[in-house]
Structure formats: C-alpha cells, structure tokens
C-alpha cells in the first residue's frame, strides 16, 4: 500500500536551497533549466519543524501497543521458538532495561518476572511507560541476542527446560543473576551498542531511514521517499545587489571620509512554482514504527502510523524550506495538492512539466499541464488509485482528469490519508 502526494507551491523572491557557490540549485529538464530544492533540504525542514502538526509534538495515546513492543515482539517469538517462558521473561526484562535505561535489571524484578504467572504481572514487568519505536532490524538483533543469552544458560539451568521441572528458589535467584549479568549483555561493547540502538531508533529513523553504518542488516530503510522539487517553468532568477549600511560612518561622513556602505554584495533571488512529490510506503512505515516484520504489517497497530501520516500531510502543504528567513520570509502554502492511495508502482507526475509551462498564469497553466499528463498516463496505464484533490484556481480540468467530483481541503486530505493507513 502506497500513499503518493503531489503539491504545487509558489515561492516568490526567495533563495531556498543553495549550491557551494551560493547560487540556487538548478535542474536541467526538458530543454530548460529549472530552480530546484533538494530532497534532503525538504526533509530537513519537515522533520525539524516545530509548530502546529510538528512530528515531535505528537500526543500518542497511552494505550498504544508500542508500549508492549518487548512483550509482543521479543518475548512471544522466543516462547514460540520453544524457550522456557520464565527465562524468556527474565531475558526480555534484562534487555528492555539495557535499551531503555542503559542499566542492569534489578534482581528482584527479574526474579518476579521468572515467577510471574498472571498476564498482569508479565505485562508489568515487560511493558514500557513510553512508546518504544524500534524497527524490524532492531527487533531481529534483540531477538537473536536474547536467544544467545538463553542458549548460554541452558546447560546450567536445564531444569527450566524440563517438562515438569520445578526450579527451587535458589535456582530462580541464580538464573536471574546469570541472565541479567550475562556477559552477552554486560560486555562494554554490547552495552554501548545497545545504548546506540536505543539512541538511533525513534520517529525520525522510522520515517526517513537511518544509514549510519556499513552493516546493511542494521540499516533502517526510509518509509518516506521525497523527490527533489523543481519549478514547473523555466527558472527565474535575479541578482539582488545589496549594501549593508554602517550607520555610524554614514552619520559622520566628514570624519570617516565615507558615504557609509560598510559592505556591498549580491545574492541570487528566485521565483517559482515548485512541483514536489512524496511517496509513503505504508507497510514499511508500520513495520518501522511497530517493530514487526514487514510482511506482518497488516496485523500490527496502525494508530501511530496513521497519526504520523496525518501530520506529515499538513507539513508537506505548509512548511517551507526555511532559508533566508529574515530577508525573504519564504513562507508559502501549497496551492494544489493531490493525494493518491493504491498498490500500483508509484510514479511522479514530473513529466507533466517536461515542456516548461508558460510564465503567465503559472498556477493554472501548471494544473492544466498536470491534467493533460494525468489523462495521458491513465489512458496508457489505467488508474486504480483512490484520489483526492485540494486546489485553488481553475480546478475543473484537473478534477475531471483525476476522476474526482470536487476539490476538498488539505485537512480533509490529511484525515483521508490517516484513514487509509488505519484501515489498511
């Protein structure tokens, strides 16, 4: 299941994203050069935005199942593998403590986990107070580590593996120590690695991926793919000559012998209507947020994923690549947004603008180009996507091409997207 979003956003008189020489980034496309904003620039501002709908301000419901990550994703699979339940709880608790607080689990807590009988006691031992976002690579590693710890104590504590084994209280205490203080969890390297795992995981990595190491098995794949945005028309740039006035010298020209311009320079300013495109891999997003294998994503909890997506749609439509804030106030909202949900291979509609649109009436011309391109694509490949359109201006042709009755608002697209993720 994929969600795709396309926006058209106008930025007059700005310098959104620069190259090493200070000029606006550009893109040669269809025989003319466009102004470009790189995907890494867009993502940087979306992930760090700190206003309404900010990703980090999410009020995730306390009941969310992500608190049960350790119980559901580590303990249960180990029990299914045939490891004795009491020791599975002991090792899961010890791992949780390492990952969440960086410390060694308390002996009496581990003993309680070994002796737990009621589901309530088990969840008290293993569930975390806060939402724990660990992806499938983290879960695989933690699961394998836990299994190694259990294997290492099997000889000494075989009583737990026996069908009618009844470990006495000494055995419980010794097993608790053997597990919580196992070298496999306490070695300096491992402690640092588990701390690193905890630091590296989180919302950010779940959305945009994490590629910190050469270890491809530890990599977190991005669930959100962002294309470079570019203008639908030939790039328009102006060299803005400016001077910084030294007011002290200006006020005393006779003494300073100068007219007061302390610094003169020029910077490039560009104007354009940018086409921007984003794909959300819903199954991978759920897997990254809930720590489940990707193929089991439909059975996982979709609450967090759907609220992330709802916020993200707002961010895409309203958050600007913030460069030169003080001198250009580059704050614009999208004037056109298309949302699509489906399983067909996602594709950008960028080729609608391969022939640069004329510079007069840019928004309406761009929407007309989009409409024509969408009709062409649908004619060639058919369309199975569920579609929503929010737009202002002359929207009829675009609505017809997309096969929607009418336009909706951006909040409605956000809500619809969240609904798609919830129901998926």
């Amino acid at each position, binding site marked *: 299941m994929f969600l795709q979003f396309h926006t058209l956003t106008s930025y007059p008189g700005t310098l959104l994203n620069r190259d090493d020489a200070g000029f606006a980034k550009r893109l*040669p496309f269809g025989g003319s050069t466009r102004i470009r904003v790189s995907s890494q620039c867009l993502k940087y501002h979306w992930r760090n935005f700190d206003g309404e709908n900010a990703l980090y301000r999410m009020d995730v419901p306390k009941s969310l199942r992500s608190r049960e990550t350790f119980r559901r994703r580590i303990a249960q699979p180990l029990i299914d593998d045939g490891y004795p339940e009491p020791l599975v709880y002991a090792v899961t608790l010890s791992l949780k403590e390492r990952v969440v607080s960086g410390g060694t689990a308390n002996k009496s807590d581990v003993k309680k986990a070994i002796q737990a009988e009621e589901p309530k006691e088990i969840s008290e031992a293993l569930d975390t107070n806060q939402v724990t976002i660990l992806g499938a690579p983290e879960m*695989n590693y933690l699961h394998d580590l836990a299994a190694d710890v259990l294997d290492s104590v099997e000889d000494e504590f075989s009583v737990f593996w026996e069908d009618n084994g009844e470990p006495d209280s000494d055995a419980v205490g010794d097993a608790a120590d053997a597990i919580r203080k196992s070298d496999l969890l306490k070695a300096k390297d491992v402690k640092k*690695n588990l701390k690193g795992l905890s*630091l*590296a995981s989180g919302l950010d990595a779940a959305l945009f*991926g994490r590629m910190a190491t050469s270890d491809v098995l530890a990599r977190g794949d*991005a669930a959100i793919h962002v294309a470079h945005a570019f203008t639908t028309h030939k790039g328009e740039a102006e060299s803005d000559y400016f001077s910084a006035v030294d007011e002290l010298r200006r006020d005393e020209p006779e003494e300073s012998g100068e007219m007061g311009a302390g610094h003169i320079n020029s910077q490039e300013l560009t104007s354009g209507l940018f086409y921007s495109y984003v794909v959300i891999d819903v199954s991978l997003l759920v897997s990254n947020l809930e720590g489940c294998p990707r193929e089991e994503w439909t059975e996982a909890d979709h609450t967090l994923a759907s609220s992330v997506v709802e916020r993200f749609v707002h961010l895409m439509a309203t958050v600007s690549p913030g460069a030169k804030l003080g001198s250009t106030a580059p704050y614009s909202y999208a004037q056109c947004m298309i949302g699509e949900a489906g399983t067909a291979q996602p594709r950008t509609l960028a080729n609608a603008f391969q022939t640069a649109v004329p510079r007069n009436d840019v928004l309406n011309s761009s929407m007309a180009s989009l409409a024509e391109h969408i009709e062409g694509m649908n004619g060639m490949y058919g369309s199975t996507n569920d579609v929503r359109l929010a737009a202002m201006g002359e929207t009829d042709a675009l609505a017809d091409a997309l096969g929607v009755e009418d336009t909706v608002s951006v909040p409605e697209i956000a809500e619809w997207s969240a609904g798609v993720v919830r129901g998926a």
Partner: protein
Amino acid sequence: MDVLFLRFDAPMMSFGGPIIDNRGVIQAYPALSMITGLLGNALGVDHSEHERLQDLQERIRHAVRRDREGKRLQDYQTVDFSKPYMDDARAWTTDGRLEQRKGGSASSGTHIRERDYLAGACYTIALTLDRPSESPTLDDLADALRAPARPLFIGRKPCLPAEPLYAGRTTAEDLTAALSDPEFFPNERDDGPYAIWMEADRDDPQARPYTDRRDWQNQVHTGQRWVKEDHVEIATSA
C-alpha cells in the same frame, strides 16, 4: 528468448559508480547490481536475504539502451556531524559493537558531499533470465514491477520514476534485436542511432572490464564483467 523491458524515465536518476572520499560519481549506464537491487526491491526481498539476491544477479542478462542523454548534475550536500542524530554513539551494528568514526578532521564538523545525478535522461533496459523456469520467473518480475512490495527508485531514493518501470514483454532473437524493436521505444523519439551497452566476450576488442557484480553477503562489489558500447537503430519492420 523471452525479454522484459524496463523504462527508466525520471527528472533525476543515478547510476552510481565507486564513491571515493566524498565524491559520488555516476556512470553512463546502470550496473548489474543496481538492476538486481531494484528487482529485489520490487519482489520485497530483505537485506538479509543475500542468497536470493545473489542468485537473481547471477541469472540476469541485460542490455541497456539510452533513449535520451540527459545532463549530468552535481548536487552539493552538507552533513552536520555535530547534530545529535549524526552522533556515532548511535551507530549500532548487528555484530554487537558500535561502528564509530576513527577521528581526524573528517569525523566532526560540517562534511561536504558531492553527489552526481543524471537529469532528464531516459533509458530502456532489455532483460532476460538464465534458467528461465526457476523462481522468480520473468512473469514474477513483471508482476512485481507493476505492483511492487516497496516504492521503486532509480539508483537513489529521491530518484523517483516518472513512468511505470515495467515497459512490456517480447520474444526476440537476442537482447540487441529486442532493443531495436520499434514497439519498445518511448513515444517521443528521435531518429537515432541509440547508444547501447551489453555484455561482451572479453576477447572482443571493444569490451571493457566493469566491476558491477555485487557480493551481496559481504556487501562489496567484486569481479569483472566485460561490457561493450555499441549502437542500435530503430528496426524498420519487414
């Protein structure tokens, strides 16, 4: 032979070559490893399933045609290593130890990276599989491309395709003949000739060695493949 066509049409794409220091260069045509990874992605193969990827890579025979040359673009990117999310204390690995930077001037501060892209290019790839009856078959690949397990991209994640990658099937004498078939050119075409790259015998004087086979288990490129550049024209149907 049975042939499957892939179309690469995107505002930006990347056929990555060896990255030296901070300079990410591209090559004129996609590597075998890239085609393998792309198809693996469509099939939903996981990073850990290196045997499936290795096996697929060994079976792929492909030839590449450039339909529109595009322009090279050098993107300037900066990475601020002082940001908390770039801190290498979080670089965990499945080996159980952190993989940290070794120190030196490149391990802190703002790091500059240059990444090349091809802008506005269009390529067609003709592809067939050795041991055609084994899984995945060309039919499986075609299905996976039409409804892929993950979003597909051309070389790097921001390089999102502007057309479906699946561009049709045919039977042809060989891959060169397939790439001359007038039915499998883009709608807007010029007269050609079109540059093509294909595997060649190492004794062929035009063949050049190319290290584009990936050892998927050890995550490095190894070995050689001999590739020659040639050209095709649009065949006039008899």
